[in-house]
């Protein structure tokens, strides 16, 4: 378990430094992967959660601006009778950005027109079963999650 991991019960929370980099993001992904395994999240849903976390953290690190407060992750798992849900909330004190209201990029019509960057938001939208955003005046709180049947 990475040193920065601060598990607070099950499933738990994790904290990255405010000025995080790709290596910090990789450690956070490893924490999420481990926490999903420990809590019996199916591998397909766990992989999608880790993928979305990778994209969210890349956006926060690249576009979040100056961040003095830590980035926190909260994993929640709800195992209902029929439908189960695992979600991750990423909270950061960077620039306010609501990915739900950001316009969708038009699909490139050909390979020649295809961009080689900036597709993270499409992956987050396309791979999540739920997506929520709020800004509390100081911090962004983005929640993404996966659902599956028992």
């Amino acid at each position: 378990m990475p040193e920065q991991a601060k598990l607070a019960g099950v499933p738990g929370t994790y904290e990255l430094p405010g000025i995080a980099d790709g290596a910090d993001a990789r450690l956070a992904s490893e924490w999420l992967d481990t926490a999903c395994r420990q809590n019996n999240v199916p591998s397909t849903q766990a992989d999608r959660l880790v993928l979305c976390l990778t994209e969210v953290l890349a956006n926060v690190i690249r576009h979040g601006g100056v961040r003095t407060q830590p980035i926190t992750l909260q994993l929640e798992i709800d195992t209902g009778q029929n439908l189960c849900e695992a979600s991750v909330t990423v909270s950061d004190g960077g620039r306010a950005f609501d990915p739900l209201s950001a316009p969708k990029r038009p699909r490139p019509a050909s390979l020649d027109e295809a961009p080689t960057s900036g597709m993270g938001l499409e992956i987050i939208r396309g791979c999540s079963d739920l997506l929520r955003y709020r800004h509390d005046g100081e911090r962004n709180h983005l929640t993404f999650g996966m659902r599956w049947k028992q």
Partner: protein
Amino acid sequence: MSTISFADVGEDLRRIMISGQLDAPGANAIASQLLEFASGPKKAVVVDLSGVRFLASVGIGALIASAKAVKGRGGKMALVVDRGSTVMMSLEATGVDQLIPVFGRISEAEKAALA
């Protein structure tokens, strides 16, 4: 992490195998080699992603750059991806599955790249 290797098959085909997870560090680790391998002498290039656990946007960018390089010298690139996998979901979410042909079997991908 991620690994990449290639094998030339016959006169016209190069098969590139990637495994691991293509998040930002994983994709950055293989991006320049992928472009180098795809820019080789073979006109048909198949990139086998069946050993990749997930594919982040950085990795998709590397695939697009390679496909453009292959197309630029008159060749074709095709991908091998397990249907229903997280990798396939990334390709569908970004529409890249409509730009670079995707196949479930390597034999199908090779046939398409050589056509």
